[in-house]
């Protein structure tokens, strides 16, 4: 199957679209553009892109509502673009089907990294064995074994659940609520302190420099990203 490297950019700002076109083309992606929500939905349906970059601040329709509409049938990754200080919107989008986010102005490097991750994760859904490795870290999902530099790490079951969840979604941002719900349960979705403490514990165990983590990255106000 030929890799679909079509990316649909839905953004009302012509300058942004132009910029994205240039950077993405340079990196081997083909892009199609839409400047309104309506156009975007139509183009998503006709072009079936591998990934959609969706601006939340579209003029004719609220970004979240567009997201909802797309997610009724579109299964590929959607990365949302938003302005700074709108964490609420970002979290809502992430919890409602968006895979990742970027805040404007964004660095091209980050953009490409997120696109890469999102595509990888989506194309990797079929496979994905239970053995994951990230640098010195080796995780056996099935056997519940974690090794760092081949030394066995002792993790509590909660710690492991957390680590596993993050590792399975490496590169993708996971919201606090999502992590809390998945690991602790629905009623814990606002008990951020649990998450913080356990992430701190995990970091102590798996990071070379726990205070300067490189594996578990904090996305402030949003959640965590298991690094790549």
């Amino acid at each position, binding site marked *: 199957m030929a890799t679909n490297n079509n990316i649909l950019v839905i953004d009302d700002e012509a300058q942004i679209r132009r910029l994205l076109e240039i950077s993405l083309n340079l990196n081997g992606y083909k892009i199609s553009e839409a400047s309104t929500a309506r156009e975007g939905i139509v183009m998503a349906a006709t072009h079936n892109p591998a990934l959609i970059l969706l601006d939340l601040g579209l003029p004719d329709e609220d970004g979240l509502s567009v997201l909802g509409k797309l997610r009724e049938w579109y299964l590929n990754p959607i990365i949302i673009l938003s302005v700074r200080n709108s964490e609420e919107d970002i979290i809502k989008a992430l919890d409602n089907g968006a895979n990742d986010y970027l805040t404007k102005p964004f660095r091209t490097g980050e953009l490409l990294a997120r696109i890469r991750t999102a595509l990888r994760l989506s194309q990797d859904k079929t496979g994905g064995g239970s053995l994951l490795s990230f640098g010195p870290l080796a995780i056996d999902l099935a056997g519940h074994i974690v090794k760092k530099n081949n030394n066995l790490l002792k993790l509590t079951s909660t710690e492991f659940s957390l680590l596993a969840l993050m590792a399975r979604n490496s590169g993708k941002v996971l919201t606090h609520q999502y992590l809390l719900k998945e690991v602790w349960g629905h009623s814990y979705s606002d008990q951020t302190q649990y998450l913080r403490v356990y992430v701190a514990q995990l970091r102590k165990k798996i990071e070379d420099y726990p205070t300067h983590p490189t594996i578990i990255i*904090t996305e402030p106000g949003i959640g965590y990203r298991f690094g790549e």
Partner: protein
Amino acid sequence: MNDYNNIRPNPDELLASIKLEEDQNKKGKLKIFFGMCAGVGKTFSMLESAHIDQSNGKDIVIGFVETHNRPDTNELLKGFEIIPLKVVEYKGTKLKDADTEAIITRKPDLVLIDELAHTNVPGSLHLKRYQDVLDILDIGIDVYTTLNVQHLESRTDTVSQITGIVVRETVPDEVFEKADEIELVDITPEELLQRFDDGKVYTPDQSKEAIHNFFKKGNITALREMSLRIVADRVDTQLREYMHKNRIRGPWKSGLRLMTVIGPSPHSEKILRWAKNLSYSMGATLLSLYVESTKKLSPSQQDQLNKNINLARHLGIEFITTSGNDIVRSILDIGQKENITHIIVGKPRRWNLISYFRLGNFVNRLIKYSGNIDVYVVGSDQGEDNQYMKYFRLPSFTSGYSHYSLSALFTILTAVIFYPLKDIIGYQAVAFGLLFTVSILALFVGIGPILVSASLSALLWDFFFLPPPFTLHVDRIEDILMLIMYFIIALIGGVMTSRVRKQEKLTRERELRTSALYQLTKELSITSSIDEVIRTSVKYIKKYSRLDSTIILQGGNNVLDKLLRPENSLTLSDPELSIAEWSFQHSREAGRFTDTLPSTEFTFYPLIGSKLRLGVVVIKQEKTLSGDEKAFWDAYRTQISNALEREFLNDIARRASILDESDKLYKSLFNSISHELRIPVATIMGASDTLLSGEFDKGTSMHLHVEINKASERLNRLIDNLLNMSRLESGRITPKLDWHDVHDLANKVIEVLKKELERFNLEVSIPDDVPLVKIDFGLMEHVLHNLVLNATQYSKPGTTIRIKMYYDHQSFIIQVMDRGPGFPQDELKNVFNKFYRLEGSISGGTGLGLSIVKGFVQAHNGNVTIENRKNGGSIITVKIPTEIPDLNQILL
């Protein structure tokens, strides 16, 4: 020299008369149709006059016209719009009266209101109709009204003497004198009597007999003369004022020079006016003289004297003072010196024994030594209280029953004690014993009980001690004498002692009030806020008058606030609040014991400063204030008003200076922003232009790209800062507090500032036991970002920048330390102000960074401080109160 002074108008007077004219132009004009009594045709003339005005185009309404159903008068009513009377319910009956509010709302050019002296029905705004008329004039509406001579306050006594009818409704002379036009409606007494016989004259409120006594030719003639004279006086005054204002030289060619002697009595006013008129008709110049003697004046006398002096000035009479013990000699000395040809002095109305002796002596001596100076002795037709009478006024009896019984008891007790001793010491000595008791009692009780005690002791002495005993009859002549003497002595002694006591009590009270006033003034002078002023004032009013009070301040737009301060002092209902509003608007007192809206339980006094109207003070009075009390209360109010005004003005000045400051800041912001925005934009433009032109080499290309990148980062930062600043300004910063790992905070910032921090030695110290803090991550990230960025911008490369975070008793502390130049000691407190930039700092910032830090930290209820470090550099400390998570609960 004196002539010249008399012609040239006093500048103060000119100003006053100009102001008067101005005021008069704004106010409505009052025309009074004046007559000697009822039935002369005032209402008729008024209506006739109004018709003429109406045909000249004036908008006229009728406020209140009493026609008494006389057909000719009724005829004249036709053609005018009549404002319906308002109906007031009073004790079950419906009463009708003029509707002032409707008149004011209607705002005609002119309104006709009959019977200026009428007393309003109870429940009206004012007690008297003339007060309503004054209100109407204030608005700018002209008024025609009618008045009889008997209604003038200064003439009521005389009228009742002439006619035997007591007049109850009066109008102050002021109102009459300030009227713009007085038209005398005059008919001959014969005509009037004819009308009366014809039944055309209506006189309410009088019995048939009284009316019959009234309408006698002699009475009417006297009244006519009085009214004629009043109007003539007025004409004279107007003429004089006119001549004075227009600097017309009077008929001062005769070389006669008059001098009046004025003193601290109301009589002097009359003399001054009379003398002024005389000077005109004689063509003489006029001086007035006051001789100061060593005898001290009472405050009311001082007051009156000042009034007299002001009147003299007002009338344009030159005023001299001199001093001397012998008044007659002083007068004559000045008389000689000033070449006076006629001296004018006054005499009191009532002649009694004492005044005869004193004054008669004075006048006699004056005449005796006057030489060739003529002396006029002028009487007064106004009643005057002879001050000598005051000494013989009967005392008031106000003591309670207990005092009476106590004094009786003690007197009897004394008699009982002395009874067994009477043979040893003799009955004469017993008298002294009783006298002693009476005197001692006088120290404690009032006049009534003293009288009782004195009489009782005299009787007891007579009955039990004077031979023959057990009878009231006295044998010996010397004993009778003694008894009489005893009684007189007891009486006088008692009364005198009691009076002294009373006087002393008054003095003590006055001293107390004065010291209270002093205390109030002292405390008010050091208060520093409006609330404090109010609290202090209310406290003092309670302390010294034992009255509950509250103050209502102006709430802006010249309307009273709704708020009472202090809050729980008194409660006022809505109608009472509107009385307060009235008092404020009209700058007059209202409420109980005043003559405006007296049927409420509170009294309202306006607080007026020298420039502003400040509000109203409300007290719950139990009785009318005595003259003394009123004086103190006025002084209190003045103090309170001054203090409030001072605070108001301070506030205004403060706000003005803040406005000034913020104006300056905005200007500086504007300049700063445009500057800061242009630089990176210029860089980007320039670099990209060059890149587009294609004329560059590889190395330059890289360089240019870097420049563009850096410039755009700079722009981004600036925009962030501006956005944050405006968020802070708009008050929309509500921190979203959540648990965060402090390491995340540090790492994020370090990550973002990686490039800047490259050149420095970064140390981060976060103890292990600081895992979680409850903060708004976004805000605190900004805080730390700005602090660290600052450090990188001002420190020399290679130096150490240190970030420290830790817990300290429920507070979370962040510290950023650098080895930069530090801040000048005296600037430390200004560092967090908007746009503060250090001298010679590199451009690239707007000075907003640190003020954003302060704003965000304060949004967390924390604070931020800066200090210089001992070995150079500065340390900024952020302290935020925060919860500590219960980790044990989490880590099960």
